């Protein structure tokens, strides 16, 4: 039986996994950078990447959702929470500010949550949960104008109501098994590898609202490598990467929201304003890869 907590002996393996993951991100941005027509000096900038990460281990589980069902404990399917350790159905911004957090860096007291993954009806929590803040997918001049997320922003990405893979932006793959093609639904990962989930949040904000009735439409995805006029403010692309200590037969797996393609993520921003602004200024706009402390690596 695999347990939800990372096994000490597998730590080095996990670290290797993180390194490989980071390398993949680098390679990914190399592809983006080298295909971007407006790249000023591709030879020099090719593998530069605009990034700072927050690694937030699993905190707690509750059938609560302070964005979709605020004030209604028990109203939601089961969620697994990362980051702030206090989040429940009643959580508002003042509760998060100054709360304890599972994140590295500790300064990130934001709350992140996803539908709980079950194998044979037993919850499985990610052994690695990384939230990358990226400057990619848009033209370099747009990256250079990135603004921090406003304090208190609430945002849902993915489609909990997806009726099939066609309605979904979920991506499942295997850590340490690149030959298994990624899919919008669960994949069968070979023994010794981990199931991983990628989810990209939208990065163009309407510049006005902290939330919207569907909790999505105050932000949107870029069009033609730029932000549309309706959502003109470019913010970091939040990429959620979860590594679950499970592999094998995907028919034993389900999310609290249903099949793998219903994967979604909720983000409640509570970064201290100046701290987030500094990271955007020092890492994203100048396209520099930063560590957890928000300093260039």
């Amino acid at each position: 039986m695999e347990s939800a907590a990372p096994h000490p002996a597998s730590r080095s393996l996990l670290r290797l996994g993180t390194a490989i993951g980071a390398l993949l991100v680098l390679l990914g941005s190399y592809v983006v950078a080298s295909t971007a027509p407006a790249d000023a000096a591709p030879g020099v900038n090719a593998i530069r990447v605009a990034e700072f990460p927050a690694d937030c281990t699993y905190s707690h589980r509750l059938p609560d959702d302070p964005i979709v069902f605020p004030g209604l404990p028990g109203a939601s399917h089961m969620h697994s929470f990362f980051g702030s350790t206090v989040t429940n159905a009643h959580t508002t911004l003042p509760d998060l500010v100054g709360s304890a957090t599972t994140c590295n860096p500790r300064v990130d007291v934001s709350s992140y949550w996803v539908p709980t993954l079950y194998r044979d009806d037993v919850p499985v929590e990610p052994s690695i949960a990384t939230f990358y803040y990226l400057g990619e997918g848009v033209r370099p001049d747009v990256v250079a104008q990135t603004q921090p997320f406003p304090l208190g922003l609430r945002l849902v990405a993915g489609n909990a109501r997806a009726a099939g893979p066609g309605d979904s932006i979920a991506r499942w793959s295997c850590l340490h098994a690149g030959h298994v093609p990624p899919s919008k639904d669960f994949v069968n990962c070979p023994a010794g590898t981990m199931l991983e989930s990628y989810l990209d949040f939208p990065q163009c904000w309407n510049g006005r609202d902290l939330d919207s009735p569907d909790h999505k439409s105050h932000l949107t995805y870029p069009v033609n490598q730029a932000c549309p006029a309706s959502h003109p403010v470019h913010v970091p692309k939040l990429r959620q990467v979860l590594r679950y200590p499970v592999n094998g037969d995907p028919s034993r797996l389900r999310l609290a929201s249903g099949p793998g393609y219903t994967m979604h993520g909720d983000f409640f921003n509570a970064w201290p304003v100046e701290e987030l602004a500094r990271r955007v200024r020092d890492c994203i706009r100048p396209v520099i890869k930063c560590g957890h402390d928000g300093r260039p690596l």
Partner: protein
Amino acid sequence: MRPRLAALLAALLLATGCATGTPPATGTPPAGQFSATDIAWLQLSVAMAERLLPILDLVPDRTTDPAWRRLATRIETSERIHLTRARRLLADFGAPVANPHEGHDMPGMLTDEELTALRSATGRTFHRLAAGHLRAHLTQSVRIASAEQQGGSDPAATGLAATVVRAGTADLARLDHLDRAPTLPPVPAARQ
């Protein structure tokens, strides 16, 4: 028309810059009497009622037990009244009826597989399954309506919540009476 009035109010509030950073945003007036909790509870209540009605519709065909038929009719009547009131309030608030999580393995809501199983069940099996689903629905419905009573803002919404709590609690007692050896809800805790 009430929805039109709500939309007009929303536009006015936006135009006069009254919109604050609190929960609802684009196109809905966050200021005033209703809150994000009201909206979320109404949306969820609509989704839950719409999921329950097909179960209740099955009862007359599947059982000849008059007590079962009476209870199903009673619950169906109150669910339809609550559903109408909830839909009207959402329209008044200018809020969409759909909720982002409806229909997906939600506490108190039947999955498609469970509905299929119920459709092919008869006799005692049907009674047992239907009682389990009704109990799960009523329990969840009372739980979230109690939360709305405490945390909601709009008097019409919290008033409806109070009605739902009263009716749901009474129906749960009737169900317990009817289904004397209460079976566990068919949805184990891990499925939430």
